[in-house]
Each structure stands twice: as C-alpha cells, then as structure tokens.
C-alpha cells in the first residue's frame, strides 16, 4: 500500500465508465461535457462563423481572396499581442502597456534601421530585446515590489507612448525602407508550392502528435482518443487548411491592364509566423512543466507556492513573454503599415487585444485561458473591424462605426455568454 512503490492497485478505480466501444464512449463523453458547460472553443467558433456569415451577406466581396488576405494581415498584430496577453491574464494580471510597448519596440527598430543604418535583423533583435527587458522590469516591479500591475502598466503605458514620440519625433512617422524583409512579412507572399508544403508538414505533424499520444495512453492502460476521432480531426484540419491555402493561391489583383501585370498570390508570410507562434506557445502551455505552473499560480497562488513553485519567477516570466510578444506584434504592425508612427500602439490597440483574448474564452481573473482563444478572439475582432469599415460611409462615419462595432462586440460576447450559460449552477 505504499504509493511510491505499489504499482498495481486500481485501474478500474479511475475509469468506471461502462466500456462500450471507444468511439461511442468518446462521443457520449464529449456531449456530456458540452452539456456540463465545458465548451472549450465552441462558442468562439460559432460566434466567428455567425459574424462572418453576417458580413458575407451584407458586404459583397467580404469573402473574396482579396479581402480574406487583408483580414489576415490586419488580424496578425492583434492576434500576436493577444497571445502574449493570455499569459498575463492567466495569472489574473493585466498589461495595459502591451500596445505602447509594441509601439516603442517598433520605434527602436525603425530608428536603428533608418537613422543608424543597421541591417533589419539587428533592428528586430533590438526591438525584441527591449520588449524582453521591459517585461522583466514590469514583472519584477509586480512580483518583488508588489505594485499592482494595473498601476505599473498604466505608468508604462504613458511613459512608452512618450518615448515613442520622442524617438520618432517631429516627423510623425518613420517609413521603413522599401524592399526590406520587414515589409515582406505582411506584404509579400509564400510561394504557392511552399504554402502547400508547409500545410502538409503541419497536418502530418498534427496527426503524428495525436497518434503518438493515443498510443502512449493505450500502452499505459489509460483510455485514449479513438483513432477514428483522430483521423476525423486531422481531416478537418487538412480540409480547412487546404481551403485557405487554395483561396490564397488565387491571384488577388483587382485589375490588370496593358501597363502592368504583377500578381498577388500565395498566403502572406505573417500566416506562417502566426502558426509558428501558436504552436510554440500552445505546446508551452499544455505540455510543459512551466505551462502547468502558470495555470497553478493563476488558479491558486498559495497552492502553487506551497507546492514549491517559485511564484515570483512565474510572474516575472509571463510579463517577459507578454512584452516580448508585444514587441513582435509591434514589428508586425510596422510591417503592415510599412512605417512606424509617433503614436504607434496607443489608442485602442491594447483594449482590442485584451477583448480578443476574453472573447476567445480567457478569464480576466486568472486560471482559465488557452492559446487558441487569442487566435479565435483575434479573428472575431478583426472580422468586426474589417467588416465594419465598409458598412458605414461619410466623413462622420467613424461615429456610427464605433457604435456598430461596440454593438457587434457586445452581441458576440453576449452570444458567447449565453452559450456558456449551462456551466453556471
């Protein structure tokens, strides 16, 4: 009966469900969990589909390859920032300065490139390093000095806005050199063959991981996802990916004429960046000790502390990750605008990114959230902004646009809340 040694007590203890074919058991289980309120990404996905359908109806051309690409590159900076914020939110903290941190880092990059003639990668590295240092300092202030993160990041929100303004100075904006790889990130495209190859690698990798997992569990005598389900999931991913890659393969040039015929086809490089970042952070959160500790600290800091987790280190690390991702987001935004403004990252940037994470399903009180939330929520926000930009016209349009954006955001969240309703009680 000694737990350290005793190996063979009770497999039947942990799973007493009547065995009735793994597939039907799996489905029954899934439905029961759905009914029980464990909805995962379902509400965000349904919300995304509904909003997309809405705009596709009222705004003809919304689903064209041209607009789809625009949507993706507009969503990219929001999603990247939201990914970083998920870490901070998981600990119940907030980083109000993520937007201006991104702005500052991209300003540093731009200034190095243009005023000091550095190559682009030095600029990017410097921007990223700045982000990491900023995150470390803010995390340290939170974890060691015990200042509430709302106040720290409110202060840095203001300060970084000022620093960016000082750096960019009286020019209003610094324009990135044409043809720099930086600009390519959001403005040039993966060759079509490479797009398909990457998709293939991604789908195969996904399949491999799922299958190896299931085999491992079966070998350990634990119930595993049935192979049929895995195959179905892989096919779904492959289909979605193919549809996207195919549509991105269409030439998106709106007009061709005698003078001019360059082609715009292939998915933007930003997509590759997004997938890469998603895979890395998803893996970190779900399969590493570090990720487990992040959830534990967010769920019950005292429990984590008593279990020997170095809470302050975790706390600092999430700020570092968040600011680092903010820096990347800043670089992506700079690539999108091919320039860095003196007010980069100010305004609603941060609120939209936090909104994205929350709509995706991440809690502001810590302990609940996943990487996919940032992606789905970011897409919802980008769809709303993109769809809205066409809906209302006129020089006073922004007033109506704000109103409608707010209303749609509320609808999306309300829908989400109603779907999740079952969970309470």
């Amino acid at each position, binding site marked *: 009966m000694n737990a350290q040694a005793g190996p063979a007590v009770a497999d039947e203890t942990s799973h007493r469900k009547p065995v009735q074919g793994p597939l039907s058991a799996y489905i029954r289980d899934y439905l029961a969990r759905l009914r029980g309120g464990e909805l995962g990404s379902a509400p965000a996905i349904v919300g995304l589909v509904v909003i997309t359908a809405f705009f596709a109806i009222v705004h003809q*051309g919304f689903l*064209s390859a*041209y*607009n789809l690409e*625009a949507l993706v590159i*507009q969503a990219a900076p929001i999603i990247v920032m939201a990914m970083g914020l998920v870490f901070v939110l998981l600990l119940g903290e907030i980083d109000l300065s993520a937007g201006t941190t991104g702005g500052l880092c991209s300003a540093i990059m731009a200034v190095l490139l*243009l*005023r000091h*003639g550095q190559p682009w990668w030095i600029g990017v590295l410097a921007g990223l390093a700045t982000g990491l240092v900023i995150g470390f300092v803010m995390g340290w202030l939170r974890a060691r000095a015990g200042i509430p993160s709302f106040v720290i990041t409110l202060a840095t929100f203001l300060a970084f806005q000022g620093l960016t*303004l000082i750096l960019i*100075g*009286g*020019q*209003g*904006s*610094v*324009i990135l*050199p*044409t043809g720099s790889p930086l600009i390519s990130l959001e*403005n040039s495209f993966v060759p079509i063959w490479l797009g398909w190859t990457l998709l293939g690698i991604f789908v195969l990798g996904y399949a491999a991981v799922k299958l190896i997992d299931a085999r491992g569990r079966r070998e350990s005598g634990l119930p595993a996802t049935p192979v049929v389900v895995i195959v179905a999931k892989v096919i779904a991913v492959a289909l979605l990916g193919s549809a996207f890659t195919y549509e991105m393969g269409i030439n998106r*040039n*709106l*007009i061709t004429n005698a*003078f*001019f*015929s*360059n082609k*715009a086809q292939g998915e933007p490089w930003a997509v590759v960046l997004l997938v890469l970042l998603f895979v890395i952070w998803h893996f970190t959160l779900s399969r590493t000790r570090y990720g487990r500790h992040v959830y534990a600290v967010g769920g019950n800091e005292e429990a984590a502390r008593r279990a020997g987790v170095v809470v302050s280190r975790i706390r600092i690390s999430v700020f570092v990750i968040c600011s680092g991702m903010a820096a990347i987001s800043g670089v992506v*935004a700079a690539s*999108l*605008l*091919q*320039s860095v*403004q*003196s*007010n980069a990252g100010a*305004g609603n940037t941060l609120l939209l990114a936090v909104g994205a994470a929350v709509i995706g399903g991440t809690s502001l009180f810590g302990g609940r959230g996943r990487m996919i939330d940032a992606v789905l929520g970011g897409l919802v926000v980008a769809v709303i*902004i*993109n769809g809205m*930009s*066409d809906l209302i*016209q*006129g*020089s*006073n*349009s*922004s*007033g109506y646009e704000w109103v409608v954006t707010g209303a749609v955001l509320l609808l999306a969240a309300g829908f989400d809340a109603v779907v999740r309703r079952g969970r309470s009680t």
Partner: protein
Amino acid sequence: GNNNNNSSGSSTTPPPNTKVGVLLPDTASSPRWVSADPNELRKQCTANKLTCYIDNANNSATTMESQAQALINQGVGVLLVTNLDSGSGKAIESLAKQHNVVAIDYDRLTTGGTAEYYVSYDNVKVGEDQGTALTACPQVAGKAAVGYVDIDGAPTDNNATLFAQGYNSVLSKQAGWKKLGEQTGNWDPATAQTVFTTMLGKNPTLNAVMVANDTMAQSVINVLKSQGLAGKVAVSGQDATAGGLDNVMAGTQCFTIYKPVAGEADVAIKLAGQILSGQKPTAPATIKDPTSGREVPSYLADPTVITKKNVALPVTDGYETAASVCPTPALVKLCNENGIHTP
C-alpha cells in the same frame, strides 16, 4: 492705424512682462506640433527677448485646460492657443480673460471664442488648395471621367472638417469627377489602411484618393503598392512630412501641402511682444467668426503646394532636414535627383 510693421517693438526697452505661453494641441493631427512649431516659436522668442513656455496637450482638452492654468499661474501675459476644439479653446480664452491674460488664436480659429487676434493659415483655403492640386495631378489631369474617394481626418478635429469642406467644395464642382466613397481615417494610419483596403476592394478602378494628410497617405500607398497600383492613382497629402516628400519624389504621392511654420511663428511672437510692451496692434485683416459673427483681427498666411517640381523647398527652408528625408542610400539618390542635397 498704429503700426503693423511688427519688428519695430523689439528695439525699445525690454517690457516688464516678457512671458508668453503657447498651447499646442496634439501630436497626431500633424507632426508639426512635435518639433517644428516648438523650435520655431522658441527661436522667435529668443530673437524677440521673450520667455516662452510651450506645452502640448496630447489631444486632451482637460490637459490643455490644466496647462493653461499652469501658464497663467506662471504669470504669462499673452497666451497663444492652438485649440483642440472651439469649446475648450473658448474655455481657456475666457479663463485667460478672467485673469487678464491676452489670448491669440494660433493656427486654429476658436469659433465663439474671445481671442484678441488670429494668426494662421486659412484651413478652408488649405483644403481648397488640396482639391485644386489633386485635379492637376498627371494621373487624372485632362481625364473625362475620374472616380475618387475621400479619406478625411478625425471628425473630432474641427480642422479636419474645414479641410474637408475646402477640398469637397472644389472636387464636387469638377466635371466628370465622381466620389465613390468617403470615410474617416481618424488621423490614424492603421484605420486609414483598413478603410482604404475595403474601398479599393469595392472600387478597383478608382483614379484618385483625396487623403487629408501625409501619414494616412502612406497607408493608402501601402495598399496601392500591394496591388501594383502605386503611382497609377493620384494621392494627395498635407504637412510636407519627410515621408510625404519621399513619396512625392517617388511619384507615388502627387503632392503635399507645405505650411512653413516660420510664416506663423514669427508673426505671432512679434505680436505677443507688442502686446506685452503695452501696445494694441492693428491687424491687416479680419476674419468673421462664424459662430459669434465677431470680426476677429487676423494675420493670415498662404500655404504652398509641393509637387515633384518644388519638392526641395521644405528642406532648403529648413522645415525638414535632408537627413530625415533621405535616410537610405536609395533615397539619397532620389533626393539628389530632385535637388535635395545631403551633406
């Protein structure tokens, strides 16, 4: 008819109060407020032996109000106000009046306000110049049918309204010109880019884009570039920023509007000097305040349209430095071709 030869006041004995306060609006509507104006104003102040306190309100009316309070507390005798909007401008001017400080509207007229003078470029005129210059762009000049879109400044900014009033009055009168859409870019490049992406998707054959300033023009050009249309479509601008000048040289932007700050700053500071020395100068013109109907004594300057032909002007004037206009080797080459010479 006292005197409107402004320089005569500076040779007399130093006035008892030499403090002038300057309230600038923000940093987003135009980069000029960040360094061009402060630098020029300070230069003029030194030249006129005045002490200048220059504040920027960062687009917040409350901040400007508190800055005004602080400046009045400093004991300034004259307050130059570039309002964020007429309402807060008026509040500041009546505050100034309450505390016996003379207010001058600088660059923007405070409608319904109580400023004693108005020193500016004429913003409706700026808009009209933008409209006229757009019709003269090579991409559209002489065309029978032109489709164009407007991307306006922030609707919260009265100046944006005045600019739009100016260019729309010109463009709507052009035969064969058809407005395909009008949206606001909020002075924000990201918004402008999103908005224009959608506009272009709907109207791929548009010929001209009436953009309110250079920063947003950059976003429009980004989108046009991705479609291989940069240079094929006439794009306007304003402010003669470094980036704007680059785009004008590259031919992707048709023109920008250059408002030499010196033209306003020296007039305003000399005026302030005269007031502080106890005079009541008479202005060369008046502008009718549309709200109160008051005739405001005014000093008005004219803007210059910058096209590829006179692109070097802002640099030779010292408004922009060659270094910031030509940061990369490719641009240095372009600059040299267009008469901007880097050291």
